[in-house]
Structures are given as structure tokens and as C-alpha cells.
């Protein structure tokens, strides 16, 4: 039906994945391969299940009562639903829509993940914190104030702190749920640059409402749409250049040219 194949070794694979909130089906028959070491953006109108799908990949939806799923999602070749959820989230990090640093110092924010996984050695922690903050392009701005609270930073800095916090756990995949939607254009640009640098080491999946962002920042684009019964499905998936210049589906064209959504 639709071209859901993409080049590159698949990192995340969804097979006949369905998700229900109680009786309401939010995701219908999701079949997709997300390639390794690339940036995949998910776009589509509001309420079509983009974030829901993203939050399925690290099983964050399980925090919501009465969510049921059928079908499978694989990380490499491992079924994520039979895996230990804590172990899974260590491999699949997440950056949320609103920056959510903990009310702790910058250092403690970044060291939180490694400490949770049992790392106690102070020297090693310091190294990880420095590397993560450097990778998140925040080190130069905060290196003299590591003991200041993370909440004292600006919104853009907070979001980069959250990215550093996710990197510190050394995940393989980073999920980003509209990471720049609460930020000003300059902070947004910084985050996008940062994401470009991260793809060498990580597989990045990013939900965005911003067409330009998807067009300039991602390698692959997944377009979600809504069925008449309001359940979400993937209408088109392919290279970003193809989706934005030569979409196969009329709906995709209408959506990216701003005619609806």
C-alpha cells in the first residue's frame, strides 16, 4: 500500500502495532522501520497519534492507566514489551516537549541517570557530566555554575540540559517530543544544530509540528494522518527530500503545503 521501507539498517521496527486508550483506538496497524544513525521526523495533524507512537517506543504510555497495545515493536531484534522496562528506557532516552529539569543542580541533573544505574565514582561522574554537557552544546555556558539549580537556566538552556541528561545514560535511541515547541527561534536553531551532531552516535526520532524543522533537520519523514474514526495511521513514509518535493499521497502534499492540519 504505502512505501514504508527505507534505506539503512533498521533500529526500531513496528509490526502491526495498535494502541487503545480504553475503547478508543489511537493507533492503527503501524508498520515501520526506523533506520539507525539517522534522524526520523514524525509529522501530521494534531491528535493523530504522533506523540502516542513516540511514547510507545520507550513504553512511556504505560504510565497512563487503561492503555492497551497489540502487535510488536522491536529495538534491534528484541521485542520491547518482553524486555525489562527500566533496561529499555536506559537504551531509549527521551526529551520532552516542555523542558523538565529536576529541581536540582545542573551537575546532579546530568548525573541523575548514571547514578540511578549505580555509578558512584565521582571522577567518572564528573567526566560523564562534562562530556554530556559538551555534546549537548551547553558546557561552555554552564561550566562555572555546575552547582546552580537547573531551573535557573533559560528555557533553551533547560532543554539542552535535558538533552545532556538523556545523553549521560548513553542510550542508543533518543526520542524527542516537539523538543523546540516551547522555545524561541534562536534556541530552536541551536537545538536543531545539536540534533544534527547527535545523529552520528544516536538514532533520533523527533515529533514536530514545524514543517520547516522536519524538512531541514531530518533524513526521513513519517506522515501520520487520522482515520474517520480518529485513529492514527501512517499515510506516507520516506526520505525527507522525497516527501517534501514529490509526495506520493495527495493528503501529504496538502498537509506539508499548509492546506490542512
Amino acid at each position: 500500500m504505502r512505501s514504508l521501507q527505507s534505506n539503512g539498517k533498521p533500529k526500531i521496527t513496528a509490526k502491526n502495532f495498535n494502541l487503545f486508550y480504553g475503547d478508543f483506538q489511537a493507533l492503527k496497524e503501524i508498520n515501520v522501520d526506523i533506520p539507525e544513525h539517522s534522524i526520523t521526523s514524525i509529522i501530521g495533524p494534531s491528535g493523530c497519534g504522533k506523540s502516542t507512537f513516540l511514547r510507545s517506543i520507550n513504553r512511556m504510555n504505560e504510565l497512563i492507566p487503561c492503555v492497551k497495545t497489540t502487535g510488536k515493536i522491536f529495538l534491534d531484534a528484541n521485542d520491547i514489551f518482553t524486555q525489562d522496562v527500566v533496561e529499555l528506557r536506559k537504551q531509549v532516552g527521551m526529551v520532552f516537549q516542555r523542558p523538565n529539569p529536576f529541581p536540582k543542580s545542573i551537575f546532579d541533573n546530568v548525573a541523575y541517570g548514571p547514578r540511578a544505574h549505580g555509578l558512584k565514582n565521582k571522577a567518572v561522574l564528573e567526566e560523564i557530566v562534562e562530556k554530556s554537557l559538551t555534546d549537548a552544546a551547553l558546557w561552555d555556558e554552564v561550566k562555572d555554575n555546575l552547582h546552580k539549580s537547573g531551573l535557573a537556566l533559560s528555557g533553551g538552556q533547560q532543554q539542552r540540559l535535558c538533552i545532556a541528561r538523556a545523553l549521560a545514560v548513553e542510550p542508543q535511541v533518543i526520542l524527542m517530543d516537539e523538543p523546540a515547541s516551547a522555545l524561541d527561534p534562536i534556541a530552536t536553531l541551536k537545538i536543531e544544530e545539536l540534533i544534527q551532531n547527535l545523529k552520528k552516535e544516536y538514532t533520533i526520532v523527533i515529533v514536530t509540528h514545524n514543517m520547516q524543522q522536519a524538512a531541514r533537520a531530518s533524513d526521513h519523514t513519517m506522515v501520520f494522518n487520522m482515520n474517520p474514526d480518529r485513529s492514527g495511521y501512517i499515510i506516507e513514509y520516506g526520505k525527507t527530500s522525497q516527501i517534501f518535493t514529490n509526495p506520493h499521497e495527495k493528503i501529504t502534499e496538502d498537509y506539508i503545503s499548509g492546506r490542512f492540519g
Partner: protein
Amino acid sequence: MNQSLTDQEKKILAREKASRKSNIQRRRISQNIAFTFLWLIGLAAIAILVWIIGYVFTKGLSTVNLEFLTTRPAGGFDGEGGISTTIVTTVYLVIFTLSIAAPLGIGAAIYFVEYANEAQNRSKFIQWLVRIARTGVEVLAGVPSIIFGLFGFAVFVSYMKLGFSLLSAGLSGACLVLPVIIRTTEEALLAVPESYREGSLGLGATKWQTVIGVVLPTAIPGIVTGIVLSVGRIISETAVFWVTLGGSYRLPQNLMSSGRTLALHVYMLATETRAFDKALGTSAILIMIIMILNLAINLSSKYFQKRLSGK
């Protein structure tokens, strides 16, 4: 557009404009009346408070001096002696009661807020238990303290044969403040943004690590407030301790000793002796302690807020 209006319509328009102007005046006046009224109510409330405290302080402080604070009560029809042992007993009782009630209360609240939902999904029976426990806490919070006293007397003093003692009083007092601690802790936990929990879980922390590492530290100010409120509740309670602590004004030697708290001492001085001035003096001390406690709440919550927001 005005040209298209007939004379009739213009008249209506003008009248409406005029009425709108007077309307603004009327609204201003009603606002001023409301503000004056609210001010007066506020002043009245403060005046009553100042009157009470002023009365107690002016009548009572004349009996308060270092000797009054450091000598033990000597009993008698004139309420001889000071209040030293009652201060010590109060401190003992507060510490003992809280060492029972605080861990229980905080633990219960953590379970209700962080774990109960999850457990409820697993079994109908647990769901039912949790609902009963929740309702129980709510009911207990509104039960008059003398009922806790009677319960303590029947169970701890008589049935378990603990007698009039710090132990009986502490256990009964714990029952009294448990609902307070549970509810304030619950509120504090519920006020922790869900995004903190998601952030922590998303990093691969376990639920327990999330509770200990992020949720509790963020909720500490609210929890501390609940604890300090309970301290105030214990200090000012008479009914419960009247029937569980006995009334001995000797210094308690161990948990099985009877004793007398400050508030209980006020009650006994006022009802069983002629030393009404000493009752007022003791009350003045009590009020000061409560004031200091409230100040402590304010300062500590300001301190925590500052630390949390990182300014």
C-alpha cells in the same frame, strides 16, 4: 455608518452611551463598598486575635520569669511552682508521637499517591482496600479529638494495660495526627509535576528511585509543613492527653511514666486551682511556642522554595 441611522436610533444610541457612563460609576461605587467591607472584616478578625493574645500576655507575662520556667510544679490549691517538667514532657511527647506518626503517615501517603493506582489495576480487592483506607483517612481527619482520647484510653490504657503513660499518650496522639500528616503529604506529592516523574522514569530510573530521588525532595517543603502543623496539634491538644497521659507533674523517667503537657497544665491550673494568673502565664508560653513554630514553617518553606527554584 452613522448616516444610515434614523433619529430614533440615534437617540437610543445616545441614551445607551450615557447609561454606560453612569454604569461605570455605579460599578466603581459597588467595588469600593465591597473593598471597605472586606477591609473591615479583615480588621475585625485581626482585632479579635490581638485582643486574645494581648489579654493573655498582659495578664500572664507578669508571672513568667526564669524561675517560673525552671522550677517544677508543686501542686496545691494555689498551683505552686513553675512549669519546667511540663515543658520537658511536652517535648518528649512531641518527639515520641512524631517518631510513630511521621514514618507511618508519609509512607501511607506515598503509597496512596505513587503506588495505589498501579496496584488498583491489578486486583479488585486492592482497589476496594485502598478506597476504604482513603475514606478512613478523610473521616479520621474530622473526628473530634476526645474520641481519639477515648479510643486511646480504652485500647492502650485499659486493654493493653499500658496505663497513663507517655506510651499510651504517644500512640493516641499518633492516631490523632496521622490523618493530618497523610493528607498534607498527599497534597505535597500531588503538587509535584508529572513531568519530573516522566523525566526520571525516562532515564531508566525505577519507580522507587524516582520517588526517593525526585518526588520526595521536591515535596519536602509541603511534608515539613504537615509535620510542623502536627507538632502544633500535639502541643495544643488537651482532651486526648487528659485521658491517656494522666496528669502527674513529675518529670517522666521512661515511656511508662505519667506526665503533664503544657496545655494540660493550663487546663488543670484553670480548673483545679486558684492560680488563674499562672494558667495565663503558661498560656503565654504556649502561644509563643506556636508562634515560633509558624515562623519556622514560613522560613523553612521560603528556604526550600529558594533552593528549589535555584535563585
